[in-house]
């Protein structure tokens, strides 16, 4: 018995004698997890001696772990605040990688398409618009047969970049929302049920008649839930597509700040989808030995080859102007 346990201990504690693989660890947002995991898996094929292990523990987790230096890079859907950057003890670069969109999903019998505008969505999520046949909704959708049914609001229970994008948009289009609820990865929702993750929300909406919620575009597409079009700043109703999201970023690209910490909700442009967001990789400007070079190499690959893989997964690639800017910033990483 004693001999077996010593042997077992030796086997377990000894590092496996595989070829010496270098590894990078990253943590952060769940929202881009599918595309990031695709990139890191593909990059491993290109460079087998490097393993980049990314775990989606949440944007806040990513920021925290980067600050604690337990991971080599972070990822977040909401940019770090100045305080957080100060606490990180070193310049942190925000590098936009892809964009995504939040769509309003709904479950109303007999209705396949709906149009929403900012004030209407804010009213629903504030609890002011409580029924589907409310005057505001009927005005936007004259042709639809909206029933006299209570609206069940579904939101995220866990903190999330998806939420951040949604409430950021609502704060911009509704002064009342900005005043009473505000924006953050988790907020004090006035009404509604909380679903865990995009899965939780889409599940609840699918199963609850009269429900409305918000999920990332990819979830709505993959799960076949009806989602509505939203009126953008230019006054056009846009149904979320990968292209519409890229247009939103392009519109904001002209005034892109050097640190990329910008919100692209309610962006200008006729074809822009108003509820879009960047997601960023967070990297220290100065990295410990060797890691900076590896991170740089990956980022170059990401800009050159990775971007093309995004649309198939429901994410929008960076517009060309932004890509060029990011490429220059990548070169400054040490």
């Amino acid at each position: 018995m004693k001999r077996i346990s010593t042997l077992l201990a030796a086997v377990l504690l000894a590092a496996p004698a595989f070829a010496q693989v270098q590894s990078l660890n990253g943590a952060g947002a769940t929202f881009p997890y599918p595309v990031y995991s695709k990139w890191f898996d593909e990059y491993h094929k290109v460079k087998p001696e490097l393993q980049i292990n990314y775990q989606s523990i949440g944007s806040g987790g990513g920021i925290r772990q980067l600050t604690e230096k337990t991971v080599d890079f972070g990822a977040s859907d909401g940019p770090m605040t100045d305080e957080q950057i100060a606490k990180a003890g070193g310049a942190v670069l925000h590098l936009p990688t892809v964009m995504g969109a939040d769509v309003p999903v709904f479950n109303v019998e007999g209705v396949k398409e709906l149009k929403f505008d900012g004030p209407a969505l804010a009213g629903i999520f504030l609890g002011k618009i409580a029924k589907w046949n409310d005057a505001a909704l009927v005005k936007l959708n004259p042709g639809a047969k909206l029933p006299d049914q209570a609206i069940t609001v579904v939101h995220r229970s866990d903190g999330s970049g998806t939420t951040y994008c949604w409430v950021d948009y609502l704060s911009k289009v509704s002064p009342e929302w900005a005043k009473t609820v505000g924006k953050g990865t988790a907020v004090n929702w006035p009404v509604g049920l909380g679903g865990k993750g995009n899965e939780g929300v889409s599940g609840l909406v699918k199963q609850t008649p009269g429900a409305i919620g918000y999920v990332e575009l990819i979830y709505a597409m993959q799960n076949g839930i009806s989602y509505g079009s939203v009126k953008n700043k230019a006054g056009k109703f846009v149904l979320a597509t990968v292209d519409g999201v890229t247009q939103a970023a392009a519109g904001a690209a002209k005034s892109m700040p050097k640190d990329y910490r910008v919100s692209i909700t309610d962006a200008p442009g006729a074809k822009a989808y108003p509820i879009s967001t960047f997601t960023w990789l967070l990297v220290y400007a100065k990295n410990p030995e060797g890691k900076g070079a590896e991170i740089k190499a990956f980022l170059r690959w990401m800009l050159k080859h990775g971007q093309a893989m995004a649309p198939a997964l429901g994410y929008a690639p960076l517009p060309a102007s932004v890509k060029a800017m990011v490429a220059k910033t990548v070169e400054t990483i040490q």
Partner: protein
Amino acid sequence: MNGAIYARRRRVNAAMLTLTAACAVLSASVLLAILGYIAWKGASSLSWAFLTNLPKPVGEAGGGIANAIVGSAKVVGLAGLIGIPVGVASGVYLAEYGRRGRFAFCVRYAADVMNGVPSIVIGLFAYALIVMPMKRFSALSGSVALALIMIPIVLRNTEEFLRLVPGTIREAALALGVPRWKVVLFVMVPTAGRGILTAALLALARVAGETAPLIFTAFGNRFWDDGMLNPIATLPHAIYNYAISPYEDWHRQAWAAALILMLFVLAINVAARLWLRPSAGAAH
């Protein structure tokens, strides 16, 4: 008059028999429903490739969970190596030296409390204890978190089984002049050995299914792990990640992985209980 009362009593008896039988059958059938559902959802996606491949990028067929299976084995194995000796030793202490006394009372109380702490809080504790000072996520920290969950279970069961050993055995050994520590280690513990080992196996099966404590400790890994001092994949974590994703393929993998986990946990439990049965009959 007597006849009517007796008939009523017999009716009550029959009614209670039916009611309690319904309770028991209902409880038992829940397990069958769960097993059936998982088998139905997961069986179709099980294959040898699934068990031996690494995860593939999204959209590519043939991804597997080999690293999660091996990772779980390693993390749970190390947790057992840490938790079982400590748990057994504590249980032995409580049974042999802890019949009275405040210290023993506090230890039992502490074990009960640790039993009730949500596993995510234990994971946080392990994070603060090991991940932060080491400045890295590691399989080791995950094992420590799981060991903290195992110890109260093993402790309580060890104490119970040791108490069931007849005192006459101890007295006989002591009367022969055997030192006390040898009596405990070589006579008492082996006698209760089957029960203790069963408890250890059940504790292992319990922690094999834990997800929450591993998120901030073992962290997860899409590749083979790089030793116990680095992040590592585990089965429940993989299930959770796949289940909350938007892709059908990943959902299928989640169900298949859940089936594997269920089968493993069940196998350990069935084996442990079958093994235990004869000795339990003798002790009772």
